């Protein structure tokens, strides 16, 4: 019997919809559980990203200094990186702020429309000047667009990657 | 008007000029004008009057004399003494020396390669005749070719003569002129039109401007001959609004020609009628592309359309249209006057005649030159051009403007013709030739041209509209030394795609400056990458990846 693959899922700047779609795999999750160990994920308790991961699903765009550090760390410790969903693949909704300077975005959120104005400084990670899709920050092995990608596609891609083949997918944005 | 009358005008004009013992020809082309040659002319006239020599010395304004970087230029005839860098204050001295030795400190030697190695056809009158007087043009043999054509040749005879001459389009692509005329002549439909493309837009090119300003009648005569050959009765000269002097002189020339019967109804007493109108370009480089130019004459946004149909079949207002560039038309009278064999004897096997170049950049002799096809780049730059000034070292020569490429030192022995320049990844282009020394960064040059193409893209087709922006952004990364290997791959694949898929010549050739600098100066790109590894590059070079 083949060794169980070490699987991770991460959630950068996204809405968690891709993770919801992942959970929509339903009973396939049971088959999956037989083949992989979920070593890091918003769905499990692990607090730090492990050293040696076979496959990582990344949801969300790279928006903040924390996202940037995370994805670089993850890339270093992952054999196959899958950009999951439109935010990771194109920047999607998070990237809509790229048309404006960061200062304007913060002002809109924390001053103009806030009941108690005050821009957070140290408490939250700083926003990057532009939101970028994952593949423009670190090399990505497989991209899976969709908002969210349908569960069936996630299954197809994940199984192909676990089998060591290149998935031939008919996916679309949105 | 008949031959006798042309001869009479010519004889009268020559007699009128030759009654002066001295003739001072003052360059009134744009280059010298901006250096104050109009004031020089006024001062010379004043001082001649003051010295009481106005019956002995004629002052006349002429077109470009070529050595624009040393203006204002004044030529003393018949002694053939050239003065350079003349100021209004020099006038008394020049006048005083009319009957003595020439003024030494103003004298420009004319036995240099700059003058000796040139062969002048298109520019034969430039700097010799007053572009504002048709009589001067006629005295120099003007409108003889038109008269000969109208009285001795059938239209097919004209076409055959041009075909035999081997003349090819001087706008850059080098399409055989005779073949184009023949196509328009045979194309069904009427009326037919003749259009002269004077929308010289290459940055660093001023050949057509000099011809339009220095010898406008030559263009009109060439157009009229071509119109007779294809059966057109109406023509347009499309000129950049940035060239007001050219516009003024062309309009003046048209009026003079109409008055003498060289244009208009029943030209030179024959049944052939032809009229020319000047149309203003309004600042769009893409209008040098023939279908965009047609759209612009029609009053539309200057956007190209896919060819075929070619303008020869469906051009202006859907009618068969002959479009050629200024220099092409300017060659036609000389060919018909001197014969196709004479023209074909100049140049190389496939590129006949001469080519006018605007030589500029880091070269000693800056100006307008006309050279026989087949001359080497080295002869042009180091012979005629006098080499690199200020102890600089030659690095590359750029021909063809934003559609062309940079040619390095190892190819300086290349003979200038359409095919050999294309093989080197550049093009003949309309004639801009910019010399660069070792201070110039080739990445910056490529970026400069891409910025040009990006802002001049008409926006109609996707590859050019977006591709040039993407290419510019990538080149900026190289310029800022933040590029990666991935960017180099992107740059190359984008170049290939934009070239293959763009709608018109502007987009298709926009990658040329990048491709040619990548080909000859790849190292300059590699050094600007953050992940550049010299050892790996060496291995690749050994594998034949480099060039």
């Amino acid at each position, binding site marked *: 019997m083949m060794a169980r693959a070490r699987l991770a899922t991460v959630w950068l700047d996204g809405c968690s919809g891709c993770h919801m779609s992942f959970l929509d795999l339903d009973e396939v999750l049971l088959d999956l559980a037989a083949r992989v160990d979920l070593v890091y994920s918003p769905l499990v308790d692990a607090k730090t990203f492990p050293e040696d991961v076979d496959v990582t699903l990344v949801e969300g765009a790279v928006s903040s200094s924390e996202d940037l550090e995370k994805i670089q760390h993850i890339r270093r410790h992952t054999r196959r990186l899958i950009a999951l969903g439109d935010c990771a693949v194109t920047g999607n909704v998070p990237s809509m702020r*790229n048309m404006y300077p960061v200062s304007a975005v913060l002002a809109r959120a924390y001053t103009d429309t806030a009941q108690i104005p005050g821009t957070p400084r140290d408490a939250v990670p700083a926003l990057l000047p532009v939101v970028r899709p994952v593949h423009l920050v670190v090399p990505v092995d497989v991209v899976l667009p969709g908002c969210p990608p349908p569960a069936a596609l996630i299954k197809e891609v994940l199984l192909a990657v676990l089998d060591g083949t290149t998935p031939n997918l008919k996916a679309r*944005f*949105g | 008007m008949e031959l006798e009358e042309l001869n009479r005008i010519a004889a009268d004009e020559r007699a009128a000029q030759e009654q002066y013992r001295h003739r001072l020809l003052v360059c009134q082309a744009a280059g010298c004008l901006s250096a104050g040659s109009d004031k020089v002319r006024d001062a010379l006239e004043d001082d001649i009057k003051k010295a009481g020599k106005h019956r002995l010395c004629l002052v006349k304004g002429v077109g470009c004399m070529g050595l624009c970087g040393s203006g204002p230029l004044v030529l003393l005839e018949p002694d053939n003494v050239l003065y350079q860098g003349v100021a209004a204050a020099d006038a008394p001295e020049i006048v005083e020396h009319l009957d003595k030795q020439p003024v030494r400190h103003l004298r420009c030697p004319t036995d240099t390669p700059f003058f000796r190695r040139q062969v002048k056809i298109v520019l034969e009158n430039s700097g010799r005749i007053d572009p504002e007087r048709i009589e001067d043009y006629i005295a120099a043999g003007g409108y003889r070719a038109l008269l000969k054509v109208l009285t001795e040749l059938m239209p097919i005879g004209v076409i055959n003569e041009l075909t035999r001459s081997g003349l090819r389009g001087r706008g850059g692509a080098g399409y055989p002129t005779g073949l184009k005329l023949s196509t328009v002549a045979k194309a069904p439909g009427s009326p037919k039109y003749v259009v002269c493309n004077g929308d010289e837009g290459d940055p660093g090119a001023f050949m057509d401007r000099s011809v339009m300003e220095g010898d406008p009648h030559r263009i009109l005569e060439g157009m009229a001959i071509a119109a007779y050959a294809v059966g057109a009765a109406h023509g347009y000269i499309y000129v950049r609004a940035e060239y007001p002097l050219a516009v003024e002189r062309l309009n003046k020339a048209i009026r003079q020609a109409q008055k003498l019967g060289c244009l208009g109804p029943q030209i030179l007493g024959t049944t052939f009628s032809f009229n020319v109108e000047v149309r203003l370009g309004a600042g769009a480089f893409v209008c040098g592309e023939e279908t965009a130019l047609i759209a612009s004459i029609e009053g539309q946004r200057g956007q190209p359309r896919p060819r075929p149909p070619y303008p020869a079949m469906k051009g202006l207002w859907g009618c068969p249209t002959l479009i050629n560039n200024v220099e092409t038309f300017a060659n036609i009278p000389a060919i018909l006057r001197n014969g196709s064999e004479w023209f074909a004897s100049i140049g190389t096997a496939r590129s006949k005649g001469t080519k006018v170049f605007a030589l500029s950049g880091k070269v000693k002799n800056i100006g307008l030159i006309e050279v026989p096809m087949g001359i080497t780049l080295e002869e042009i730059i180091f012979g005629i051009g006098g080499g690199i000034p200020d102890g600089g070292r030659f690095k590359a020569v750029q021909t063809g403007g934003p559609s062309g490429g940079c040619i390095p030192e190892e190819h300086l022995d290349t003979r200038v013709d359409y095919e050999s320049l294309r093989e080197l990844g550049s093009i003949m282009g309309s004639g801009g030739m910019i010399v660069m020394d070792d201070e110039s960064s080739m990445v910056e040059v490529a970026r400069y041209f891409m910025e040009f193409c990006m802002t*001049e893209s008409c*926006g109609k087709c*996707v590859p050019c*509209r977006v591709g040039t922006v993407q290419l510019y952004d990538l080149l900026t990364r190289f310029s800022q030394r933040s590029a990666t290997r991935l960017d180099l791959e992107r740059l190359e694949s*984008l170049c290939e795609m934009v070239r293959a898929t763009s709608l018109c010549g502007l987009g298709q050739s926009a990658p040329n400056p990048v491709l040619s600098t990548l080909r000859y100066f790849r190292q300059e790109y590699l050094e600007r990458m953050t992940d550049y590894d010299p050892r790996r590059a060496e291995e690749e070079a050994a594998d034949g990846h480099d060039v």
Partner: protein
Amino acid sequence: MVTTFKINEMDVSAGEGETILDVARQHHIHVPTLCHLEGLTPVGACRLCLVEVKGSAALVPACVTRAAEGMEISTDSERLQRYRRMIVEMLFAEGNHICAVCVSNGHCELQALAGDLGMTHSRLGFLYRQKRIDASHYRFAIDHNRCVLCTRCVRVCDEIEGAHTWDVMGRGIQSQVITDLAQPWGSSSTCTNCGKCINACPTGALFKKSKAVGEMEKDTHFLGYIRTMREVK
């Protein structure tokens, strides 16, 4: 004059005025298009329908090219697919196409092209330029973020409706479709409110105000109908 030629090695013939694209579609050979819309004058601008002609280095746009006798055309080479993917990438990089929140999500020609051509992500840098949304018209709106400058709205308004309310201003990457003198659509003195531009638009750039995400379906059948009715007259 009828010409016979080959598309992807299949023998075909074209009647007077029929383009390579017309003939390809008659034989159910798929050639992707974006700026083309049956019933409007073709412009050859999007370059998606470029095809290869055997023996010629130049690619030709199928939508405006008539095949010559004996031509051998191929519509789907690896090179063409690569170029087409890059064209779609360029369009995604140029605009701000957020399919997930677009009224045309699921009914958009650009989105479908990306899917069909396997354009799953863009290697090009997104330009993220600030573009306007004009919602001044009482029924319709335009979101320039989603405009691909195919000029189908311009042509349908000029050629079919006859109003010529739309045109393109500026040039190059600064090009933008405009109504009248680049004024708010709602203040246009020439717009007839006919809505043909809405239906001609391949993306969610032009839409009806009442539509939410994914609800804006376009219907271009009116073009064929109008053409037929005009021919009958």
